[in-house]
């Protein structure tokens, strides 16, 4: 893959839109040097194929390296081995540096939002950097703010927002860049159960409206099953791999109490439990 062209997903060097069909991680490995000088293998031999338009949930016990996969796809870090590329009409294209084609929604919204800018200014941060003229983004600003339900709160500063509202602001800020892929790193994990559920419902709606590809990291089985079109279960770290992948073709809106749903919860619970036992065996507990 060394000879592959590295370019943003949106357009290639000649400015024509890239016709990608799937995002692939091929034998991806990531290791870090620990404080003790030892090499710590976080991810080992990750093979993933995410189709365009998928809502792909990465599910796994904490510390298994789910978030590391996102940072690799975003381009914040480079894999130690293996390659990440898209496949489609233009052949293979290696993913480039971090950019607006793959925007990330972070769990820590207080750190991710710019505290000195109000909601509207936060959302307009990207368009303004790109020198987009105001009349060209005014309509989409309104559109995305109302899509996430922050139309009435455009002038508020992050410190005036609740946790859920901060995540809504982050989502609007990412969507206005019209990314190809939305990377979400446990975005609702720190929210209370009720806020979490209402944001999950809205995110499912936004995904259906916009048709974006979403890669969603979570440790919550029910969340993964409520949202995803596919769920990839990871093994416990270190040297984590994708353990199983399941397709979820339950119609939306999904109900957690339906038989199909409960069966799938049980299936995933067994998978996760296996991993917990595996970790205990490793530790010698």
């Amino acid at each position, binding site marked *: 893959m060394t000879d592959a062209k590295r370019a943003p997903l949106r357009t290639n060097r000649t400015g024509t839109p890239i016709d990608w069909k799937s995002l692939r991680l091929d034998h991806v490995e990531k290791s870090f040097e620990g404080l003790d000088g030892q090499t710590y293998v976080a991810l080992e031999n990750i093979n993933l194929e995410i189709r365009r338009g998928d809502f792909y949930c990465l599910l796994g016990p904490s510390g298994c390296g789910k978030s590391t996969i996102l*940072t690799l796809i*975003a381009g*914040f870090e480079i894999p130690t081995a293996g390659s990440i590329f898209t496949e489609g009409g233009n052949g293979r294209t290696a993913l480039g*540096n*971090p*950019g*607006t084609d*793959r*925007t*990330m929604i*972070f769990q*820590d919204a*207080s*750190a*991710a*939002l*710019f*505290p*000195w*800018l109000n909601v509207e200014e936060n959302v307009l*941060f*990207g368009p303004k*950097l*790109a020198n987009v003229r105001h009349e060209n983004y005014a309509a989409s600003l309104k559109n995305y703010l109302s899509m996430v339900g922050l139309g009435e709160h455009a002038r508020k*500063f*992050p*410190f005036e927002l609740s946790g859920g509202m901060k995540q809504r602001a*982050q989502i609007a*800020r*990412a969507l206005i*860049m019209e*990314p190809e892929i939305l990377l979400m790193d446990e975005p609702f994990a720190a929210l209370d159960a009720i806020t979490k559920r209402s944001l999950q419902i809205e995110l499912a709606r936004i995904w259906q409206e916009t048709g974006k590809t979403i890669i969603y990291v979570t440790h919550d089985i029910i969340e993964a099953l409520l949202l995803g079109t596919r769920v990839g279960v990871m093994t416990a770290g270190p040297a984590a791999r994708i353990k199983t992948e399941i397709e979820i073709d339950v119609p939306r809106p999904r109900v957690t109490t339906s038989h199909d749903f409960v069966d799938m919860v049980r299936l995933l619970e067994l998978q996760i439990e296996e991993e917990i036992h595996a970790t205990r065996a490793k530790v010698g507990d």
Partner: protein
Amino acid sequence: MQPAQKSAIETPPIKTVHAPHIVLPPAVRRFIWRLTCTVISLSVVVVVWHLCVGTLLNAALVATPEATLAKAWTMIQSGELFEHVGVSLRRVIVGYVAGCVIGVLSGAIIGRYQLVADFVDPIVELVRPISPVALVPLAMLWFGIGEASKYFIIIYATVIIVLLNTAAGVSRTPVTRIRAARCLGANDFQLFRKVILPSAVPYILTGMRIALGFSFMGIVAAELIGAREGIGFLIMNSQMLMQTSQLFVGLLTLGILGLVVDRVFRALLAKSMRRYMRTDELV
């Protein structure tokens, strides 16, 4: 248990008589309280000072509060005090502003590039314990006895603390925020200008405020160098002439001036920098 029944006997409505007093808002009450405390504590100092001179303290070495105030009054009337204040203030402001500019720029580079920090840190750590007074001979040697040597001392007193705080603020920008900006398309320059620098503002301002105090401490050292006017000169000249009341006027002026400038600094920043101080992180 039976539900509580309404009393058959009708009780007359309780009449409350409001005393005709004005309730002040908490901020005003707080201000009045603080003002009272200030007046009381300063009065105690003046009274104790007055009682001690001539009893516990040698009257030839310590001027009484009355003598100090009388001297201050004559110096105000003659305009002499304002001349000294003006000269010193100009030196402090020029040196301080230059020191802040140098400190912010170099601190930003040190905070942003670990490699630069690794090389510059030992130098800063070595220079840091050297007080402005210790640099007076060197300043005279390099810049003579003109204004340049005075600015040098004030700049020196200012620059290190601003540099260290700026570097700390710049290097502590949350990684998440930097990554978020990258996803929104920020290039290196935009990242620095629009994310890292604003994130460091609370640190930079803290450094600048501490440095403001340091620059006032530095003025006396600066005016050790062949000064003919200024508060530092006034203080040292009074010592040589055994003019204790004038010496006390100098000290008092220095204290009041520092206080006023600090208040002005804070008032200006409270308005202009408020949005950068609105942060839920610990600073």
